[in-house]
């Protein structure tokens, strides 16, 4: 197990397509609900405890080596908005490309073969973490962190927020991030015995609705 591999995977520069996505922040900025560091923090905390937890659970489960196709179905069941399903599979494809180039493995090859149009991104992230020799808890950390890091970066671009303030928001979420990753990894540890039903299924209806609307905007900076 290499802690440095986790830094590589969780680095915002990991070339897996995330930079073009705002995690719902672009729609939230337009709606006026994210407008300053405080509201960004509220947004990120909400996202972390809902879709963040769900994604972290899927990633951790994939990192245990559990059947990725079953997890992909579980991800579909936890992603009701068609726009977000499309985004998740597209980002999954992009993550797959980067992961196979950085940590090639039979497991990744198999998943790429079985899901040529892309598996859900958290599942691919978990499989990539496993390929990199990381533990399920570390995969959960990477997924959870990515779920708030992307929106924070997007908010800096969209609102010209002070980047120090945006980074301080992420630092203040560190305790929550640890907690969410722990919960995700505990659930993932039960999947082998009890099936995917034990994985978190928290969702954020407003994110779902806003994502559908955002996907129809004619002019936007971010793909989602």
């Amino acid at each position, binding site marked *: 197990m290499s802690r440095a591999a986790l830094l590589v995977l969780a680095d915002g520069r990991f070339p897996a397509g995330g930079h073009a996505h705002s995690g719902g922040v672009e729609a939230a900025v337009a709606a006026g609900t994210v407008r300053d560091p405080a509201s960004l923090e509220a947004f990120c905390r909400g996202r972390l405890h809902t879709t963040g937890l769900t994604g972290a659970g899927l990633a951790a489960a994939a990192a245990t080596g559990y059947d990725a196709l079953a997890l992909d179905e579980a991800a579909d069941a936890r992603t009701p908005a068609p726009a977000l399903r499309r985004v998740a599979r597209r980002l999954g494809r992009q993550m797959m490309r980067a992961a196979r180039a950085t940590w090639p493995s039979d497991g990744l*090859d198999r998943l790429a*073969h079985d899901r040529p149009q892309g598996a859900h991104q958290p599942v691919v992230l978990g499989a990539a973490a496993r390929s990199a020799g990381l533990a399920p808890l570390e995969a959960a950390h990477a997924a959870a962190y990515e779920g708030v890091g992307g929106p924070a970066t*997007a908010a800096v671009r969209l609102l010209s927020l002070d980047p120090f303030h945006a980074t301080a928001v992420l630092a203040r979420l560190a305790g929550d991030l640890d907690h969410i990753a722990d919960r995700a990894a505990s659930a993932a540890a039960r999947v082998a015995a009890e099936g995917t039903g034990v994985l978190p299924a928290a969702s954020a209806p407003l994110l779902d609705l806003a994502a559908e609307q955002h996907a129809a905007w004619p002019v936007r900076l971010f793909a989602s």
Partner: protein
Amino acid sequence: MHLDHPVTAPQRHTYGAEPFHADGSRRALRVGLGGPVGSGKTATVAALCRALRTQLSIAVVTNDIYTREDAAFLRREAVLPPERITAVETGACPHTAIRDDISANLEAVEQLEESLPALDLILVESGGDNLTATFSRGLVDTQIFVIDVSSGDDIPRKGGPGITTADLLIVNKTDLAPYVGADLNTMATDAHKQRGDLPVVFTSLTAPDGIGQVAAWITGRLTAWQAGATS
């Protein structure tokens, strides 16, 4: 580092830069077009399509910054059938999408290659950016940087990776030079100083066959590519 045979994992898209298809034939030549906002990248793409589409099978990927306007323009102008034009979204950062994280562009390119067999040429237009924006060698085989005379005739002197390293530098809108007081000789001298032996062409896309030299350069590159020389 190629670990498995393409037949056992045909969807293996690890390295987009590999020059061959699974059947051993050469894939399409990928040409990147970068340069500052409004310098004439889309106009160059449109003119190239018009000049070359009868002899070559061409597709285009656009990278708009916050709209899909370039793709819409090319479709409206009908320079190619609509299924040959794809728009990539870049999240407010065009150079990231062509250099630091090329995954979305590679996807677009590969999708075109899969849906349009026997493509000869794929033109990838970057969103308008700054003088440091260059394409990754993992995304394109050769790149063109487009500047124009109206943003100041000192641009070639300023240099930057786009101007100094692009395989072809286009100085566009020469028809406007008299109106903006741009000295084309100075621009040419500075460009050659920055670029050594790398080629520079001056174009006016409003003139009949204004794209001629660029089309000839592309055809030459393509011939070398298809013959197997490294581009």
